[in-house]
């Protein structure tokens, strides 16, 4: 296979969520001497972007998004140590979790997939994540962004509780806070003092990139 064929194959097989084929093609690419970042940026990420675009248009459905994400994750697991060696920086580290009292995770998982697909390193803490667990994870992983997900109007107040806990732990200035979930609005995100809100997975990626960019600009000035 030529490098072009490998890239095309990776793109096509990620799109249809064929995890074994994606891993095989990733290995084939590496064996052929292709750079890990080429496989990532010229095939995997564009493919997942297309998956996200189709999902937003209503042409793709939840299972298709999940299997594409899983196929990508398998390749990333193989590539991540190599990318670290070659010094290719991730877009940023993102700690994500559904807040305490809330067990909904589909929306959060879709956002994770899109973030990974865009080049973020995502650490998913799962559901029912207490403020203490968020604090601990922020100390351990030193993420650029922390994301709080809530699906219920009754668990949304945990955003504020989490942010208060960040302030108390002296971490609020070190991490960008994003919030989201079905009942959440921009107005609510502003009211609890979050840095960012997005209505869907694609918008979340865009917002995360914008916030990272803004922070870099602010750090430089």
């Amino acid at each position, binding site marked *: 296979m030529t490098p072009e064929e490998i890239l095309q194959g990776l793109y096509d097989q990620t799109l249809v969520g064929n995890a074994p084929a994606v891993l095989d093609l990733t290995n084939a690419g590496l064996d052929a001497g292709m750079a890990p970042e080429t496989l990532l940026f010229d095939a995997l990420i564009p493919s997942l972007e297309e998956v996200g675009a189709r999902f937003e248009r209503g042409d793709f*459905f*939840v*299972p298709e998004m*999940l299997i594409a994400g899983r196929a990508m994750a398998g390749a990333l697991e193989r590539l991540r140590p190599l990318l670290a060696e070659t010094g290719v920086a991730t877009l940023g580290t993102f700690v994500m979790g559904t807040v305490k009292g809330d*067990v909904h995770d*589909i929306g959060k998982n879709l956002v994770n997939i899109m973030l990974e697909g865009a080049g973020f390193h995502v650490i998913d803490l799962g559901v*029912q994540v207490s403020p203490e667990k968020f604090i601990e994870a922020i100390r351990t992983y030193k993420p650029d962004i922390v994301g709080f997900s809530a699906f*219920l*109007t*009754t668990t*949304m107040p945990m955003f504020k509780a989490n942010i208060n806990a960040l302030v108390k732990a002296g971490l609020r200035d070190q991490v960008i806070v994003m919030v989201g979930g*079905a*009942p*959440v*609005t921009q*107005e*609510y995100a502003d*009211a609890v003092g979050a840095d960012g809100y997005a209505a869907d997975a694609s918008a979340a990626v865009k917002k995360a990139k914008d916030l990272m960019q803004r922070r870099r600009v602010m750090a430089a000035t």
Partner: protein
Amino acid sequence: MHTVVRSASRTVVIGPDQPFCVIGERLNPTGRRIFQDQLRAGDLSRIELDVAEQVAGGAMMLDVNMGVPLLDEADLLSRVVRLVQGMTDLPLCIDSSVVEALDAGLAAYEGKALVNSVTAEDDRLAAILPLVKRYGAAVVALPNDEEEIPEDPARRLELARKIVDVATGRYGIPAEDIVIDPLAMPVGADTSLVTKTLETISMIRDELGVNMTLGASNVSFGMPHRHALGAAFLPMAMHAGLTSAIMDARTPQIVDAVKAADLLLGNDEWGANWISMFRARQAG
């Protein structure tokens, strides 16, 4: 076992030998941005249309949820309960996870309501069951606790049993006023989830014998052609022992599947309901 709910002038009986209780899900702002904006602006006009559509579609009860971020849910829910009771005599399911809102909704309600919902978490049981007892209501109970929504049907049964034990033993709420929600999960997230729900339903029927309801639309979340999935799921769940669902009552394909299953499962004597539904449509 029969769960009896009432408005001021109408009684509905939920039970395994009764026609399946269709609870309309539509009076709920979650995921409805325009409706949310209207409610924020104090505009309740949409509710009349939602009630009318669900009544026309064949709803036997209506679920009322008024959870809008940054709004006083207790105040809104009590006003909407009064408003809806002025529009229809169907009994209502008072739906909130805010205890104060449930209290206000129940205070405003005329009749015997169904409260939605309590879980197996100790603090939720302690907060909500006294309300249920005080207002003489029935209650929907979800078998999840502080730790998890269990996937394993045996674990769900165990938590359902805990709720029934606490409600009957500690609060004196009769078992027939407890309606367990066996937890409907999206088949799009994992294709083994619905069989687990079906298994949970038959275990609860066999072991506890209580009535059950669930949010049927969850099953088709994220999938195309949702109506067909709802229409396939509900008859299977009914056969397993489900006696009610909070569901889309506006879509004939889904409601027809439920009415057909009522007839086929022996809960529509001589097909009287089925035939009168046909005649009503012929006349319309």
